[in-house]
């Protein structure tokens, strides 16, 4: 279980998160929606300890990770996988090395076994025969899928998705959505995704939370979000330029 309590974070005196509260139950998929640049990725990076909050608590299985020293944080991170917006594949390595890196650094498994797991994970995300290819030769959708294979290589309990479908064609976006749903169903992974793609949010979420002006303003099931009368949320999910959300920044 992940509990975020009153989390604050500013960059150069510009507040980005001003008291975020959110609870994510085990095995649940929570999608955080919000405009580009509203701090969704920042929130995600706090959950895996890449950023430290200015104040507030972040409890993972009832332990506050904001006070963890680096060594303990690294132990915790082995339970996590993260899919980055730009995939963030290591371009000096092949696809198989990317997927197997965590395993080869943290386990004593022989190399052949790691390659086998890497191939199996790649197969799970629908990729066959790309093991020896360098990431630069892949399309955007393939990179996302390799990133996903890397994120799940170590059998994580939690997977964080940063804009999993952004920049993909609608068909590939749906392939990724199906993958995320499959992973939750087969591996019982707790997932947190941030996105502004509402199609994806409705499809994969157990719960949707909207981040606006540094706070979570509404949490609900996709159905509740669809039928909300909160004008800010309505404007966002309807994709309208008219409403309480200012378009000038």
């Amino acid at each position, binding site marked *: 279980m992940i509990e975020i309590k009153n989390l604050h974070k500013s960059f150069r005196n510009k507040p980005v998160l001003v008291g975020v509260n959110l609870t994510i139950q085990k095995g649940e998929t929570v999608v955080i929606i919000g405009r580009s640049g509203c701090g969704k990725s920042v929130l995600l*990076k706090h959950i*895996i300890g*890449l950023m430290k909050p200015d104040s507030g608590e972040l409890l993972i299985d009832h332990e506050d990770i904001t006070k963890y020293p*680096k060594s303990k944080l*690294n*132990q915790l*991170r*082995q339970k*996590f*996988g*993260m899919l*980055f*917006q*730009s995939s*963030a*594949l*290591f*371009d*000096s390595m092949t696809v198989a090395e990317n997927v197997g*890196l*965590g395993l080869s*650094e*943290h386990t004593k498994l022989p190399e052949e076994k790691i390659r086998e797991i890497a191939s199996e994970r790649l197969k799970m995300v629908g990729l066959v025969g790309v093991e020896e290819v360098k990431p630069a030769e892949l399309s955007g959708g393939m990179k996302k899928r390799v990133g996903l294979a*890397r994120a799940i290589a*170590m059998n994580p309990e939690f997977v964080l998705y940063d804009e999993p479908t952004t920049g993909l064609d609608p068909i590939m976006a749906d392939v990724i959505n199906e993958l995320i749903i499959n992973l939750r169903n087969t591996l019982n992974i707790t997932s947190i995704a941030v996105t502004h793609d509402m199609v994806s949010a409705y499809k994969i979420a157990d719960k949707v939370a909207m981040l606006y002006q540094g706070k979570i303003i509404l949490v609900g099931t996709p159905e509740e979000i669809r039928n909300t009368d909160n004008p800010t949320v309505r404007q966002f999910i309807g994709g309208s330029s008219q409403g309480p959300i200012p378009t000038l920044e």
Partner: protein
Amino acid sequence: MLFKNIVVNLPAAFRRVRLVFEQMLAMGVNSLPLVLVTSVFTGGVSAVQAAYQFSDYVPMRYLGTAVGKAVVIELGPVLTALVVAGRVGASIAAELGTMKVTEQIDALETLALDPVRYLVVPRFVAGFSMLPVLVIFSDFIAILGGLAVSVFFLGISSYTFLNGLKMFFHLSDVFGGLVKALVFGGIIAVIGCYQGFRTEGGAEGVGKSTTRAVVLSSVLILISDYIIASLLFG
């Protein structure tokens, strides 16, 4: 801060021998052609300049001495370090800078890998160990360059040149030069990594970090050269 972190993580280099070797290849072996070309001409020009300054005042049998000392103590280590800073320091900053702006460094951390241990330590060990090796090659080739210019263009026999070289040749001079090389190698790697890690803002940021890495490491090489020279030879 970064330096302290590197020292603490040094033992990790022994567990990642492959990464260290990759860097040694990139920084050392692949820099060799550039260093050799630089060195031939450095040796040649130091012979020409010394001969010009000697004319009428100092006997030419000391030409080998002057070229040898200049190369071994100063020109070999410093010029090698400067060209390697341009070649390798820039590439380290650009590579790590690109990794930073494309979130690859964050990705390493999410895989519970320490970027200092995984990226910086191998580069530091490679820089620290390969620069002295490059300097040994550079010294040798530069002296050969000086000899060639003396024989073919200055009319001094190879016997006279080599005799002059041997006359005041101290092994401690070579070691002094190699101490400089150790320090310079460390500077190039640490500054390259540091500038890479603090890169922000896309391609423009990577360009700026690369420039800063080369400028800063070149300046630090010259300053530390003065300090080491004062300590060892002053």
